[in-house]
């Protein structure tokens, strides 16, 4: 055993939703430095406090100090006390790896980051960042195009147009700017950037190198995999990068097809439909499930279809697979063979100018050398426990090996990766941390935006059925919000799913102006465990869009008798 810090690693996986199990684990193994990421019920917090109070964990308070002390020595002489090159090596410098590196440095860990491509990963270079630049353009274009809307505000725009290259440059410039910001921040903090493809060669050992150079090997006390994902292209689809392409190429906006088919109607597909329709394209969605936008709360999805699909130059085929997609060649358009998702019978044949494959993303974990530590990926994803520690073939946690972000597939969002990274660093430094994924918001940056946190209504109802509680839903419309009306953007809905018996927020879904910015009040409340009966007294500036959530909280009917403040001390 290696002292208090690593002791906590051997603590078996703790299920947050199961306090009883936690108690057993806690008693059996010293729950060194266990700190939960709030939002488990009052009962759980109670347990933790109790342990601390009883004094079973003498190292609890000191563990963080201890961690710092060790590392202070490291930074002094440039190597870890135990003979490792680094305290932490992160494989992959995307948003997840970057977030982890920053937090690691803050915690005093000597950190290196291995990157085989460009700093910033998918998000910065081929994802959220450049797409936001395009969406900023599409938002303005949609506004300029809705003459009625402008007219009702007394505005007259005689002419509007765009320059494709200018739009593409805006996206590209933004990506390079963010990339250099990211690179500089890593350098400024003294994180070593090791260039090359990282491969795990054994416990606490990583090699890296580029093709044609000799691989170098480094040792690290802990290794963090953050290799992310690549666009997933189903079999039968031939991507030529010109007429059939993925988001990687689409973001370069090399041309604007007159008619584009978008395969997949999730976040990526929906955002691109917003961009392409704004730039004058017509769009055809191909969705394998029976509903468009399958990941969204059904009610939000329905309204989104009404606002974002029906009035635009978009049609769709649902319940079909794109069995075969052939790029345009020899004077023929792009051809898409559709088959019924259930019966597999041929259904239709589309002929379009271009096809964007937005069928999701696949983990980028090949060549990571996981076999050297007896880990098998599942459909490419690296199996991890709830603290992001990698699990080997036998179901045991691999010591000193963690995996975050798209590579573990728990929640494929840039900010989720970053949060997981921070959580891992906390754990490494002896303060076991479990991230509550239900408090991680997600957003789709269409116009208007869609955002959500927690459970959808069907998920909440299923959970309620199982656990025997009641679920209530409160809704408010953007039509009732002064600021939204002033902006002439009254379309939209906010929906709160909650437990009336204790005021717990189970999920919040927003479709409307600046929904992506509005969701954080709800996600923070979930993360902090704030109950509706408390948050409803919080004051919102008038008139602001945030009053949509204010209305929502006030509309909720909580039957819990007493309003308790979350931070109130609990008697032992």
């Amino acid at each position, binding site marked *: 055993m290696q002292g208090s810090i690593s002791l906590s690693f051997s603590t078996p996986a703790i299920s947050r939703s199961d306090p009883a199990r936690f108690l057993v684990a806690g008693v059996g193994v010293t729950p060194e430095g266990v700190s939960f990421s709030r939002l488990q019920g009052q009962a759980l917090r109670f347990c933790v406090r109790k342990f601390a109070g009883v004094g079973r964990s003498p190292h609890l308070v000191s563990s963080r100090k201890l961690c710092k002390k060790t590392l202070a020595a490291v930074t002094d002489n440039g190597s870890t006390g135990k003979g490792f090159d680094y305290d932490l090596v992160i494989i992959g410098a995307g948003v997840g790896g970057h977030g982890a590196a920053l937090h690691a440095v803050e915690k005093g860990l000597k950190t290196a980051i291995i990157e085989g491509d460009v700093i910033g990963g998918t998000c910065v270079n081929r994802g959220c960042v450049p797409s936001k630049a395009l969406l900023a353009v599409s938002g303005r*274009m949609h506004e*300029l*195009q809705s003459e009625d809307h402008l007219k009702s505000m007394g505005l007259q725009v*005689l*002419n*509007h*147009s*765009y*320059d*494709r*290259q*200018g739009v593409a440059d805006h996206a590209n410039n933004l990506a390079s700017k963010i990339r250099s910001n990211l690179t500089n921040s890593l350098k400024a903090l003294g994180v070593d950037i090791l260039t090359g493809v990282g491969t795990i060669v054994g416990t606490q050992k990583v090699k890296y190198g580029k093709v044609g150079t000799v691989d170098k090997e480094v040792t690290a006390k802990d290794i963090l995999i953050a290799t992310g994902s690549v666009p997933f292209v189903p079999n039968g689809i031939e991507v030529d990068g010109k007429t059939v392409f993925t988001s990687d190429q689409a973001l370069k*906006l*090399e*041309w*604007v*097809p*007159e*008619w584009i088919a978008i395969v997949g109607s999730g976040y990526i597909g929906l955002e691109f439909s917003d961009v392409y329709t*704004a*730039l*004058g*394209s*017509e*769009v*055809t969605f191909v969705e394998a499930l029976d509903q468009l936008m399958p990941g969204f709360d059904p009610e939000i999805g329905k*309204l989104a279809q*009404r606002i974002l699909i*029906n*009035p635009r*130059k*978009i*049609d769709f085929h649902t319940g079909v697979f794109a069995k075969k997609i052939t790029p345009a060649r020899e004077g*023929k*358009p792009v051809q898409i063979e559709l088959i019924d998702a259930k019966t597999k019978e041929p259904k239709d*044949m589309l*002929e379009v*100018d271009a096809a964007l494959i937005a069928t999701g993303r696949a983990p980028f974990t090949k060549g990571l050398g996981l076999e050297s530590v007896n880990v098998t990926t599942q459909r490419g994803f690296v199996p991890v426990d709830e603290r992001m520690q990698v699990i080997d073939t036998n179901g045991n946690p691999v010591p000193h090996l963690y995996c975050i972000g798209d590579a573990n597939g728990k929640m494929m969002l840039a900010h989720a990766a970053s949060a997981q990274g921070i959580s891992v660093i906390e754990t490494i430094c002896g303060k076991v941390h479990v991230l509550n994924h239900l408090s991680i918001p997600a957003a789709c940056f269409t116009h208007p935006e869609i955002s959500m946190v927690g459970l959808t209504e069907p998920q909440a109802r299923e959970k309620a059925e199982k656990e025997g509680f009641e679920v209530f839903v409160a809704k408010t*419309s953007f*039509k009732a919000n002064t600021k939204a009306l002033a902006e002439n953007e009254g379309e939209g809905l906010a929906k709160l799913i909650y437990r009336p018996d204790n005021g717990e927020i189970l999920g919040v879904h927003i479709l409307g102006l600046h929904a992506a910015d509005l969701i954080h009040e709800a996600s923070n409340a979930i993360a902090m465990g704030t109950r509706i009966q408390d948050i409803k007294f919080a004051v919102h500036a008038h008139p602001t869009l945030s009053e949509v959530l204010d209305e929502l909280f006030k509309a909720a009917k909580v039957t819990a008798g007493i309003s308790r403040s979350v931070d109130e001390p609990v008697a032992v």
Partner: protein
Amino acid sequence: MALPFATSSSATAAPGNPLLSFSSSISPSIPALPSRCLLPRRSHSRTATVRAKIREIFMPALSSTMTEGKIVSWIKSEGDRLSKGESVVVVESDKADMDVETFYDGILAAIVVPEGEVAPVGAPIGLLAETEDEVALAKAKAQSPAQSRTAAVSASPPSPVAAAPVASPLTVPAEGSRKLVATPYAKKLAKQHKVDIGSVTGTGPFGRVTPQDVELAAGIQPKKPSPTPVAAPPSVSKGAAVTPVAEKAAAPAALPPIPGSTVVPFTTMQAAVSKNMLESLSVPTFRVGYPVIANALDALYEKVKSKGVTMTVLLAKAAAMALAQHPVVNASCKDGKSFSYNSNINIAVAVAIDGGLITPVLQDADKLDIYLLSQKWKELVSKARSKQLQPKEYNSGTFTLSNLGMFGVDRFDAILPPGQGAIMAVGASKPTVVAGADGFFTVKNKMLVNVTADHRIIYGADLAAFLQTFSKIIENSDNLTL
């Protein structure tokens, strides 16, 4: 929240009646509501000639202050089978968007008020048929008001689209069994304007049907199709998609916009007029004028005015009687190769109506007497006003009459509507000094008529002879009462 839509009798009483505010659907236990709604509609059915099993779907009153509602979207499409309790349409009131659901099983036969349009509370927005058999009937009913809106100046063949392209799939067998390819927006437009997309010839890339093709087929001026500029900056690349059709359309009239001008898009009727007027340019026309002494006509008019006979009817009758003697003027040239002689003499009369123009037709004007014609005319005008003319009542004309005399216009020149051989423009009857054959000057009421005709089939002598006959009939107006 889903609300049951108002059907039949329930909706007519809706405003102000709390039971009918449809909040009752929240407590579905109220037994009165469904049963009440099951009553077949009676009150309106008489005028609309709808049998009991076709139900009108009404704009429901979603709140006590709601006077009209906007159709946000139709969740169901025409032809969809509905079962009780399903959401059918989303309605936006002054307060919120609500799903409206049906109390009946049936088939959504026709959408009367399309998405994005507004209807007053209680107005029919769609038709629900009980069985397949009634769908066609319901459709016909739904179409009558719709078609009168799209009515053209005259009897142009109902849709030039419908006729020609049927053959096209056959004429291009080289393409194999190629199916129709239409872009998403083209499909949307076709649905919106009730254009059969299968009959539209695609001009887009790879022969696909583009939105412009559909607009053309529907007789609408293409709206500016994409966000790209009229005066494009030089940097606009191939990606900035201006569709070629739009470019062509914009090309001839590249005049700079006058600052402060307001652009008001055509109504459907205006668009149809515009389309017909452009079409008329392909016909070689000429004009022949003729002075007619109208004293006898004016005298007759004074006599029969009290019996409800109008000048329009007298002129139509006179023209019809003249046409009977000159069938070629009542003919038309359909293919550029032959005369089409019409067996009936149907006089279309141009009527200005609320920013548009429509031509109700007095059928068999030569055979009916002026009193019957007057009665018919009255009916036609009131139908035109309420936009309820059946297609046959405005597109079956064989000759058109246009009279601006009541405004004091002394003479004018009419455009020949496509599909007809001739049109007569009638000026005011004015007292004029006339030199008689006996050498005496007299003052007579002179009326100038001017006929525009298709010179492919009607020649100068034909028109001259016709006008001579017409003039004689007017001068001996008593014959009109026979």
